[in-house]
């Protein structure tokens, strides 16, 4: 009994617990209103899993993937505002390479002009280099991450527009469709990609010393440097990773719509990703981080969006509704609320003991 009570107290102090509680609460509301929200089946014509819960995870892929990188950037005490713009750059570049022929309008078909590997590799490479540029400005230039990444946040969409002459290209190339609309067995491809990214990231930060380096630099950059960690290298690697992951998210986004959409692709993604990280329990001040928490945070955000669509919240109230739920989630996680519940469970434990 004593051991369980001790665990409960620790559990109530953890922000991740409260993120999970928040998600379960939202899902509970869904269940009360319409139990069939939870129905999952295999779509007979496509053989893919079909249901609102699948949609939530599927459509959270872009933010989840970006937020993995954002978690590290925030753990460093920084932030990356350029991720949304890089999503647009990635999509624009992929479409540009596949539809190189578009000067005047040409009917899209099942073909690619440049080799397909180029349309995948070049956007990822470009985004990684842009991330490295952010990291360089921060590490070597000594700039505030907020300002350094603001540069690409503002200019990134412009770069995407220039790449495509301000046009929206559409393609029908079927291998490209697989990324956002395909499936591996019964699982939608974005979920597969997202799982692979999350697992690789978790292995990279926890099975190597890199995670510890990040936390150390996030807590005290100078002390880390003096103890032999190359802070600059850590910073540049982290921002390159964030850029690379934004590139992946951009490919998924543009594959879903088989088109680049430089004005709307990745819009507000930086805010959603930061929010996912914060809901997941990583503090904006840097230091300790939790990739699992971030994943839950990202899924919470998508659950809210799906809730709005599913239950037909009127368009005008959508934003206010999202804000309200997020406010509740953040308050649930706040220090005083967690302390209150932790103390209650401690008290109850000591009463039982006594």
């Amino acid at each position, binding site marked *: 009994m004593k051991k369980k009570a001790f665990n409960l107290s620790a559990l109530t102090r953890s922000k991740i617990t409260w993120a999970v509680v928040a998600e379960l609460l939202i899902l509970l509301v869904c269940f009360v209103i319409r139990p069939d929200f939870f129905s999952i089946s295999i779509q007979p014509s496509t053989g893919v899993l079909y*249901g*609102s819960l699948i*949609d939530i995870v599927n459509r959270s892929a872009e933010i989840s993937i970006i937020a993995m990188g954002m978690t590290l950037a925030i753990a460093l005490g920084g932030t990356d505002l350029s991720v949304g713009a890089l999503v647009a750059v990635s999509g624009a570049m992929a479409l540009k390479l596949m539809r190189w022929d578009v000067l005047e309008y040409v009917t899209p078909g099942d073909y690619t002009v440049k080799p397909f590997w180029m349309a995948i590799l070049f956007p990822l490479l470009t985004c990684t280099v842009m991330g490295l540029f952010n990291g360089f400005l921060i590490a070597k230039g000594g700039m505030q991450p907020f300002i350094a990444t603001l540069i690409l946040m503002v200019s990134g969409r412009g770069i995407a527009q220039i790449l495509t002459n*301000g*046009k*929206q290209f559409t393609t029908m190339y079927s291998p490209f469709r697989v990324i956002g609309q395909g499936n591996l067995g019964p699982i939608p491809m974005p979920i597969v990609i997202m799982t692979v990214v999350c697992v690789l990231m978790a292995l990279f930060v926890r099975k190597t010393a890199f995670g510890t380096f990040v936390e150390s630099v996030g807590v005290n950059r100078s002390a880390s440097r003096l103890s032999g960690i190359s802070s600059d290298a850590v910073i540049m690697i982290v921002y390159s990773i964030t850029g690379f992951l934004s590139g992946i998210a951009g490919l998924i*986004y543009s594959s879903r*719509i088989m088109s680049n959409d430089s004005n*709307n692709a990745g819009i507000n993604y930086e805010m959603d990703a930061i929010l996912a990280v914060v809901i997941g329990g990583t503090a904006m001040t840097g230091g300790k981080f939790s990739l699992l928490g971030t994943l839950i945070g990202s899924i919470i955000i998508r659950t809210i969006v799906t809730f709005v669509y599913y239950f037909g919240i009127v368009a005008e109230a959508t934003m206010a509704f999202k804000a309200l739920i997020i406010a509740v989630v953040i308050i649930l996680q706040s220090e005083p609320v967690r302390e209150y519940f932790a103390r209650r469970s401690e008290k109850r434990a000591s009463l039982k003991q006594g």
Partner: protein
Amino acid sequence: MRKLTAIVLTAAMCMGLAAPAMADIKVAFSQIGQESDWRTANTDSINGTIEAHEGWELIYDDAQQKQENQIKALRNFITQGVDYILFTGVVSTGWEEVLAEVNEAEIPLILVDRLPDCIDDIDYVAAFGGDFVEEGRRQVAWAGEYLKSVGRDNEDVNVVIMEGTTGASAQTGRTEGNLAAMEEYPFLKLVGQQTGNFTRAEGQAVMESWLKSIDKIDVLIAQNDDMALGAIDAIKAAGLVPGKDIIIVGCDSVKAAFEAIVAGEMNATIECTPLYGPFVESCIESLEAGEEMSKEVIHPEEGVYDMEGGIDLGTVTSVAAADVIDERVY
């Protein structure tokens, strides 16, 4: 000596710069951004016409969907002392102050496309734009008339309306037209209404959820073609046949919609022409000639395109998309 050279050079440069600038008519255009194929065609048409016109200089600003950028651009135009300002607002409200500044600077203001709510309180020389309410009416009327023609008007038909960006005049106008026309076809039942923000990605996500939350959807009214095209993918993923199981009516008439109609995946699109260049040209030419324009909002002539053609909507009769697809330039 060096000073003298500098003065002479400066003077020469000033004259050199001033001479052509004096002759040119500066036409400034504040565009809202490039959110869709339609917008791109609109920009190309207006900018192309102005640039090609002898003696006219184009000053163009792309506001990237932000009102504050547009306000900044308009103030820049005033400072630069342009001769004409072409303006379309990303949202319909909040323009009183900056447009009053344009009036104070006595720069002729030509309103195109999305007209601001404060249109009655400001001075403008001409206004040209689509009739969004009529477009919305035509969307629902097409569905109603088509269903009548196939004899489905004695059953309950479930309709969902996918709206554009909340607050945009295209959204408010088309929604007004949609809802008004719904009343004229009592067999149409409204079962869902949500914003898809005029984008393919959101149109897809909204449709995906609707297909799970609404038992039977017969008609999708999408307030632009991009959302309809996004929805088509979601409908396919749900194992349904777009264009058959669900009747899809879009708006704008972009080329991709024509292709979808010809492929049988979409049923109709209501035209909202982006080709404003010719109007802008004739408008500025007549103003330069000292003619006065009417304050009445001028609407372009627009069509309705569907699979087979021949659906009579009162003000217009639909044309088969396959017959005209090759003539479409956007």
